[in-house]
């Protein structure tokens, strides 16, 4: 395998689903089984990503493979110089692991959908859209420049729009699709502004080149402040796509889409794109930017977790849980725990996809019943679904031996370390509270759905375990929720190749003094280290470069190490507490949940009504936009056009008066002249008698007068 082969494979991975999309879209009407082509393509794509993953990690683990094809190029133009916009591939460990995850889940969802969507009248169209989505998502992952990422970002947005609104005959589905697209676009405007800023400064879109120029000191508008702003603007894209506070409102509504879509797009892959974006731009995020990102992440982790406690729709609970977990990842990135954020992204993708497909299996069995208060006792009817759902829930709750335990623990460890270094203990506090809430609402969900007595006897009786094509993905995904795939040591993720070798925190391009103090790197002459910085006792020598020693602050690593066991035990403790509470409330029913809800009614209502975000946004932004649009339309019609029509009216009035003037005065004068000449003619006619005698008299008379006049003067 050469690097070139890998690029070829990457091209195939990217475009195969697009071929499937086009094929199924155009021939889906004629060929009933066109969807099999799409499924086949996805299986092939998955196999290719497996080949890519293996070869990249085995042969080129420490190398980034880049290849680009020119899309638009400008040679030597004014202001910008040479501009080249490329369709480029960046194969690093991050992207190959991500693409493998995307292809795997996408394939499983395709297979799952064969049964789940059976009988739908737009069956083939559905698979076409899935193909479009897989293409776009692969683009985000594989591209090496920010503009192409934005291109695929928008394409992902539109495939999400199409899939959420797939059942377009319902009113709510297109509503949700539209909302998702528009809310995402708000974030995208921010992201696009960031791209403009980057392009304006670096005249390129390629990540590597931008980071290289940044490392050598070129900053947007030559200031660290604007670098922070640029980073945050790009992060706006992630806020939209990863449904972070305050743009998280679209994700729960997006559950209107078919459940496998929710699993693929709104749990495992698309919403993770935001986190992936932050991973990609991590080297250019300043300390201030990271801090704000951490705050957004913490809020997004906490608020939806409180909402998930009281929701009754099985998919809504999972949706809020997804927002919360994405918040976790974002918070982790914000506090500098890059590796664990990405790790959690991958583990979460598997177990959350498993949960969603599991909920799909339940919904399928219950004939499209989604309300968990109407379920119960399904354990016996759906044993396989129950088992896989349970494993995934344990992973989400962070119970040992699962992948979720490792990644979540890593994140908590990161926040803990951050707290100990900077004094912001609020982040670990939020982390642990959310961990407890997560365990609680997941087990509430499990108990209400699978345990106890069936609430709806009729639907319960008709419930049946799902067919093989639906069960198989569940088994695969739950198997991937076990620790063994990531590390041989169930309590230490660093022991595995995943974090030990493949995923490393990238080196920062941000100027030293704009970083978190514990992330500074310096080239310091030998022996001077002690004098140079306050945290020098935590500074460690790490190899030499050209006579100077590279001093790398390992304060953070050190703090992480110290945080490992406290964080682990504490997280295990809060998770178990959450589970126990869930059992107390819903299984043993020692405390009545309803009574508690009544006792703390304001909080309950706040949670149940999702903190009234939708209502607030509707009352402000939506109303404002609609109102201003109506006002402007009125203004346009009445004032602007009124002036035009008014000008016409005035002109007509003036013309009326000039017309009258013309008629009466001007024409009157003309007529007067005519009349006068007529009158004169009338008078003079008297003299024209035609008789010679009269003329002679007149001539003589005239002569006399003329002679008299001559004589006088």
């Amino acid at each position, binding site marked *: 395998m050469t690097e070139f082969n890998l690029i070829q494979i990457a091209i195939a991975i990217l475009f195969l689903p697009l071929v499937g999309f086009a094929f199924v879209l155009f021939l889906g009407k004629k060929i009933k089984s066109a969807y099999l082509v799409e499924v086949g393509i996805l299986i092939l794509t998955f196999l290719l990503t497996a080949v890519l993953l293996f070869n990249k990690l085995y042969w080129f683990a420490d190398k980034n493979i880049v290849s680009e094809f020119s899309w638009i190029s*400008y040679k030597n133009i004014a*202001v910008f110089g040479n501009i080249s916009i490329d369709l480029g591939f960046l194969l690093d460990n991050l992207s190959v692991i991500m693409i493998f995850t995307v292809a795997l889940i996408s394939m499983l969802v395709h297979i799952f959908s064969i049964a789940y969507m059976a009988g739908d009248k737009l069956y083939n169209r559905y698979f076409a859209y899935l193909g479009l989505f897989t293409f776009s998502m692969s683009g985000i992952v594989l591209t090496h420049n920010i503009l192409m990422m934005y*291109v695929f970002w928008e394409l992902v947005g539109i495939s999400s729009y199409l899939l959420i609104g797939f059942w377009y*005959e319902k009113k709510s589905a297109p509503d949700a699709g539209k909302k998702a697209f528009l809310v995402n676009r*708000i974030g995208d405007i921010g992201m*696009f502004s960031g791209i*403009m800023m980057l392009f304006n400064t670096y005249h390129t879109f390629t990540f590597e080149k931008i980071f290289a120029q940044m490392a050598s000191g070129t900053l947007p508008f030559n200031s660290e402040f604007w670098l922070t702003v640029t980073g945050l603007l790009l992060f706006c894209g992630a806020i939209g796509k990863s449904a972070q506070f305050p743009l998280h409102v679209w994700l729960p509504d997006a559950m209107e889409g078919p459940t496998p879509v929710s699993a693929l797009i709104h749990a495992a892959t698309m919403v993770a794109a935001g986190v992936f974006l932050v991973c990609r731009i991590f080297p250019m995020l300043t300390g201030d930017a990271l801090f704000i990102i951490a705050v957004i992440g913490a809020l997004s982790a906490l608020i939806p977790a409180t909402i998930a406690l009281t929701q009754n729709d099985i998919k809504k609970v999972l949706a809020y849980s997804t927002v919360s977990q994405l918040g976790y990842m974002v918070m982790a990135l914000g506090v500098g725990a890059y590796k664990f954020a990405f790790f959690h992204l991958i583990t979460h993708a598997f177990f959350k996809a498993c949960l969603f497909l599991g909920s799909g299996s339940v919904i399928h069995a219950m004939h499209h019943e989604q309300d968990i208060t109407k379920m119960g006792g399904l354990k016996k009817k759906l044993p396989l679904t129950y088992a896989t759902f349970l494993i995934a829930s344990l992973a989400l709750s962070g119970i040992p031996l699962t992948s979720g335990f490792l990644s979540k623990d890593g994140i908590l460890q990161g926040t803990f370390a951050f707290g100990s270094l900077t004094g912001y203990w609020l982040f670990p506090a939020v982390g642990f509270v959310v961990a407890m809430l997560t365990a609680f609402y997941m087990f509430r969900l499990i108990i209400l759905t699978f345990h106890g007595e069936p609430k709806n006897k009729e639907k319960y009786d008709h419930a049946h375990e799902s067919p093989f094509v639906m069960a198989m993905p569940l088994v695969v995904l739950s198997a991937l929720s076990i620790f063994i795939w990531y590390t041989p040591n169930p309590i230490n993720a660093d022991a595995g190749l995943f974090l030990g070798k493949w995923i490393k925190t990238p080196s920062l391009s941000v100027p030293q003094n704009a970083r978190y103090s514990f992330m500074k790197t310096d080239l310091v002459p030998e022996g001077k280290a002690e004098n140079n910085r306050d945290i020098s006792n935590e500074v460690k020598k790490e190899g030499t470069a050209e006579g100077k020693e590279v001093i790398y602050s390992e304060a953070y690593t050190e703090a992480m190490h110290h945080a490992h066991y406290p964080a682990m035990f504490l997280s295990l403790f809060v998770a178990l507490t959450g589970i126990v509470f869930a059992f107390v409330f819903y299984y043993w029913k020692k405390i009545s949940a309803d009574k508690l809800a009544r006792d703390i009614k304001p909080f309950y209502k706040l949670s149940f009504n999702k903190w009234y975000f939708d209502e607030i946004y509707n009352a402000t932004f939506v109303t404002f936009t609609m109102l201003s649009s109506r006002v*402007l339309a009125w203004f346009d019609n009445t004032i602007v056009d009124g002036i035009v029509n008014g000008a016409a009216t005035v002109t007509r009035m003036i013309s009326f008066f000039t017309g009258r003037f013309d008629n009466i005065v001007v024409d009157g004068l003309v007529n007067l002249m005519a009349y006068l000449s007529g009158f004169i003619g009338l008078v003079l006619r008297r003299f024209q008698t035609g008789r010679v005698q009269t003329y002679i008299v007149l001539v003589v008379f005239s002569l006399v007068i003329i002679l008299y006049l001559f004589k006088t003067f």
Partner: protein
Amino acid sequence: MGNFPILSFITFLPIVGMIIILCLPKNQTLVMKSITLVITGIQVILAGFLLYHYNYGMGGINNPATFQYIEKFRWIEISGFSWIGKIKIDYFLGIDGLSIPMVLLTAIISFVATLASWKIDKAVKGYFALYLLLVTGMMGVFVALDFFLFYVFWELMLLPMYFLIGIWGGPRREYAAIKFFLYTLLGSVFILLVVIGLYFSTMETMIDGTKVFTFNMLSMMDTHNFVATGILSPMNPHNLRFIAYIALFIGFAIKIPMFPFHTWLPDAHVEAPTAISVILAGVLLKMGTYGILRVCYPVFPDITQKMIWWIAAFGMINIIYGALCAMAQKDFKRLIAYSSISHMGYVMLGMASLNSIGISGAVLQMFNHGTITAMLFIIVGIIYDRAHTREIDAFGGLATQMPIYTGFTTLAFFAAIGLPGLSGFISETFVFLGGFAFETIRVITVISTLGILLGAGYMLWTLQRIYLGTVPEKWKVLKDLDFREYAMLVPLSIIIIFLGVYPSSMLNLMNSSVNAMVKFMMDSKALYGSITGF
């Protein structure tokens, strides 16, 4: 190619068709339609020919030597007026990277609009005769390089348009037609005044060394040709260049149409028959922006530089105001008309950037808006033909009833909201990137990005109200597309997708000219500074 006068041919071929149609008996409607179709078809082929033999390296703009397919000979020559000297008007045609996209667009849209005219059954002879005259006028504007000739073509297209709206239009056609006519005529008067002013300020040196006044646009761009005392000459300390610029700009801005001169557009669109709406949005609006780029920029580079903030600001107003107004419309066609206003704002914003990326984006947006909006108006026309109403709320669920039609609509809507992979994306992106790079208009550019949110808002909302949901009982009779409608939508869709995937094809075409324009504008900054410094 030799000396074959291909530009004259492409311009005046429709006139030949018009004469043939006028000679035909009244009832030969199918023959008339076929003749029009063949003529516009030949135009497309000729335009393809122009494209095929086009030299990408030649810039044009102000340098006559780098224009292509030049045809130049004396048209009108009157000698003997002592105080004027000689009146000399050239028949001067030629194209560069600014005009060739417009020539292509005109040819394509004319052809598609011919198909859209197929169902005209009232006074067919008159319709197609006027239609062909209109096509000549439009094509002429984009190839003329003599200002007088430009003005003649500009006026030539006005008259048929008036009758086409006024006779074949909807219920309020007379109001709309007269509004369109008077508004545009007002603009024309402004343009004419400036044409005359420029004529008496510019002198061209003849081969024998004598100097004569000239209407040659390219001569007007060269400061050496200005008469020192001319009222529009930069050397004259009391020159009226600023006022002339504003007048000329308004003349063109009415056509764009720029806020606040835009209210003729929704009325004209709503009343015009589908084909004429397609022409109006597809080609006519581009004449405004084309005129600004072709005349205002290179003839008045000094004033342009001063006014650049205003151009961008009005672009921004167009984008946001148009989008918000579109959102409030209840009539489908009116909504598309306002979206047109919004999208033309991007062109103005891009023009104001004064750099290659932004101006490329602007010209590309002109082309893309032409194809996308043409498609949108065809889409409106298709539903109006069937349902005889355009009220958005009267519809719903057409996706079930007319799936293929809905598919095309979705494509056009997505292109209009700037979805990557479709042509609108790259032009909008370039406009923004270019605008942001120019410090003067940076803030305006950032505010204008709101347009992509609002655009998505009203487009998706419309899509939902008309196409999604359930079909009302009374629309269960609507039929999906027929062959003619395919023939209109498919070529436009292919162009939209092709330019979305491979925008370089169009960008490279205009590249040299855009660069020449940017260079000219940059150079002239210093040049005019030194002249007015006298």
